[in-house]
């Protein structure tokens, strides 16, 4: 079974819990951040520490963690799946965003836009996605002009570089 299938099951369980009013978002994000560190991952895979010891270490590193999250980590350690924490968090966050009709859009631009342009871009992207948009702006001078919007797997290329590339293909064909 692929790891994504397993992660999705844990993420779904956590999402259902959060829908019932248990606040997990911040704690889980912190845990995932800690678990993504290579040394921590190696430690989590070591068999000579008990799950309780691993929870204590993770809890200390991530600040305080709630009982639910402590139980999650125990469960994952018992099943040797603690390394899935970052992936679980990613899927969980996507689920939360979807539930809140929110989407993360990465906009690649040639030059950093001013506040007004940024607002315009945000409005246009929100219109395009049909959801509330959390905008992330990345600068890439190779685009020459225009912008490229990435929403999930969807990419809308309105850049000068993309147009030139299209022209090259049209002439070469």
């Amino acid at each position, binding site marked *: 079974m692929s790891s994504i299938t397993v992660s999705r099951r844990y993420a779904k369980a956590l999402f259902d819990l959060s829908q019932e009013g248990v606040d997990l978002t911040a704690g889980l994000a912190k845990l995932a951040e800690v678990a993504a560190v290579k040394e921590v991952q190696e430690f989590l895979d070591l068999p000579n520490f008990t799950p309780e010891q691993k929870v204590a270490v993770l809890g200390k590193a991530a600040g305080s963690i709630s009982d639910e999250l402590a139980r999650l980590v125990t469960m994952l350690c018992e099943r040797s799946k603690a390394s899935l924490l970052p992936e679980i968090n990613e899927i969980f966050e996507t689920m939360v965003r979807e539930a809140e009709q929110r989407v993360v859009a990465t906009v690649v631009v040639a030059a950093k836009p001013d506040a007004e342009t940024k607002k315009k871009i945000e409005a246009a992207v929100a219109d395009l996605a049909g959801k509330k948009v959390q905008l992330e702006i990345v600068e890439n001078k190779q685009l020459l002009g225009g912008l490229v919007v990435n929403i999930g797997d*969807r990419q*809308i290329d309105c850049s000068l570089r993309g147009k030139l590339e299209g022209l090259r293909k*049209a002439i070469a064909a």
Partner: protein
Amino acid sequence: MKLDTAEISSIIKEQIKGFEAGAADANVGRLISVGDGVALIHGLSGAMAGEMLEFPGDTFGMVLNLEEGSVGAVIFGEFTHLREGDQVKCTGRIFEVPTGPGLKGRVVNALGQPIDGKGPLDVAEHSAVEKIAPGVIERKSVDQPLQTGIKAIDSMVPVGRGQRELIIGDRQTGKTAIAIDTIINQKDTGVTCVYVAVGQKASTVASVVRTLREHGALDNTIIVAASASESAALQYIAPYAGCTMGEYFRDRGEDALIVYDDLTKQAWAYRQVSLILRRPPGREAYPGDVFYLHSRLLERASRVDETYVEKFTNGKVTGKTGSLTSLPIIETQEGDVSAFVPTNVISITDGQIFLETSLFNSGQRPAINAGLSVSRVGGAAQTKAMKKVGGGLRLDLAQYRELAAFAQFASDLDEATRKQIERGKRGVEILKQDENSPQSVAEMTTVLFALNNGDLDDIEVNKIRDFEKGLLAHLASAEAGLMNGLNAKPELTDEVVAGLKKAIADFKATGTY
């Protein structure tokens, strides 16, 4: 070549004018891994099975696996420039190759790109590589012969236009030779040929091209080559690409012939791709759909009716049927026809030409085993003359083999048995034929007529082939009218029979053999 700069500028101007630079809305993913021509891609949530994907550096691929969270795809062509994390785009199109008469006389790769150094192709159309075969209603029975020009085949295992006849045998038994002879024999018949070379040495392909050119058959032949050095993905797709090129002619009311040389290697390539894609291996490690791999390809060989052609061409071509005859080749190991792929293809095709190493080594060339070779539909397409002279040949040969084996133990034989053995010996001898020398219907009919009529009985067995050569030369010079008439209307009327008898008697009287 003279370059007209003004003309080039105007072409570029038109292209720029026609280019619409709107926002490109695409579904994208990131490359996770690439190995042996197979890519694993994260994202591409909107990808469809069989869809063409665009990789960086003008490289294309095709979606084969749709999994939760990732997409498995084969890459066509070079893949060493691809890096982990590269962007992959959906194109929304199915993989296509160029089609049309401009491909005749050319050698192309599995993507339809020319590899013969003769410059760009003169083709305007492109067509999808994977297509659904014509349905039941659109088909017509096979009733026109496709002459291979090989006596043993045209008399005993006739092939009809639209038929699928398997050529099966061990290595070095003359499988390719039969296919090449058949292509050579089509040079003035209006049948367009497609030769698909899969997993062969590039030098072998080059020698096939040379043979066809020497015999003037290259001009109506398209050669699709996915040689052994090319990726497994290209070897897997090459037969489909060739089939699409052949279908172009079928759909326009013409006749076409396609040779897949060979499907064993295509199955190997597909097995390799499937194993890298982690599809569960089955018998002989082939994936579960290896039968469908060949059945969907061979189903596309068909004869379509007038209505289909008319509908396809929007009424431009009327009253014509089209056909795509296919000659798949399968290589067996030590004559084992019960291996997985050979049994599959035998069950899919409308008959098989079985070649044997022992026959080949004993000098019987083409090394066709008359007992195991069959044609399930070709009989309806055989010419009347050939049906008459070749009708009893298979039985006669079978009886001869039995008697010959029996005669080894007995010293005294009765007259009838002795005669039958002598006739059989001459029958076996007359079915021998040189490579690259297919015969016309009239030539084959005359020779077999002479055998049936007992004209060869008084000729020594080792003189039979000289007699055949002499007789055919005599007929070509002295009886051209009779031969042309027989070629135009292959029927053994009383008049023709009398003419043949007289011509054979005349030749025998000269004693020049």
